[in-house]
């Protein structure tokens, strides 16, 4: 099972600055280990919800770096709002983690 994400959602005014770190090898299918090619293994889809509503979603390729990092911003957020992020990879593996929006400096 995949390791947990690290999600940080910090309020700046009424904008939540959301940063997420994901533990994933993002194998391109081109890398060799010994003389064996490591098969393609990468996150294809990321969705983020703020209090249940989808605010950000992404379809991505194996060109995204290993252990992916994304950041996005949502206007109209307030402290305590729930952020839920889910990724799914090409093998069907999935992971969902959540956090709450925090005021800057708290």
């Amino acid at each position, binding site marked *: 099972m995949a390791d947990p994400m690290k999600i940080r959602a910090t309020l700046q005014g009424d904008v939540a600055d959301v940063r997420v770190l994901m533990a994933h090898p993002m194998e391109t299918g081109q890398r060799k280990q010994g003389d064996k090619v490591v098969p393609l293994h990468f996150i294809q889809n990321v969705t983020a919800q703020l209090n249940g509503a989808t605010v950000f*979603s*992404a379809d991505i390729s194996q060109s995204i770096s290993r252990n992916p990092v994304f950041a996005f*911003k949502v*206007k109209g957020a307030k402290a305590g709002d729930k952020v839920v992020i889910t990724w799914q990879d090409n093998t069907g593996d999935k992971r969902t983690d959540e956090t709450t929006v925090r005021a800057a400096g708290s």
Partner: protein
Amino acid sequence: MESTRRKLLKAGWGLGLLAAFGAALVKPGRALAAWNKGAFEAKTMADGMKALGVANAVESSEIVIHAPQIAENGAVVPIDVTSNIPGTSSISVFIEKNPFPYTGTFDFAQGAIAFVHLRAKLGETTPVRAVVVAGGKYYTTAKEVKVTIGGCGG
């Protein structure tokens, strides 16, 4: 999303049907649009754009790509894309000289600002191109990122 809508229209789906799906279509979630295999497996940027339905993209200085002129390491190149075009619903990123240039599409809804930070692998010095969808139209800009050899190389 736009491409899905166009395909639906092209395929002769009635307006009624479109209206019925309207709620789902307006919401740029990925529920409806499956991961676009054709676009992601395209080996050139032109083919990737075609598969994605990008047409008549207009060069725009309202899209800002913030990426290093010279990357410290091609394996992790930080890229920020901001669209200042009103009504931006998505940003797509292409890394022109990668084996598979189409790198991803980022959709914004419900108050999300048209901005994304990502980190990508760049195989060599290449333009990084962003394509924005706003009000059903396509806008684009690009920035060259230089990839060099950093350390001892041993």
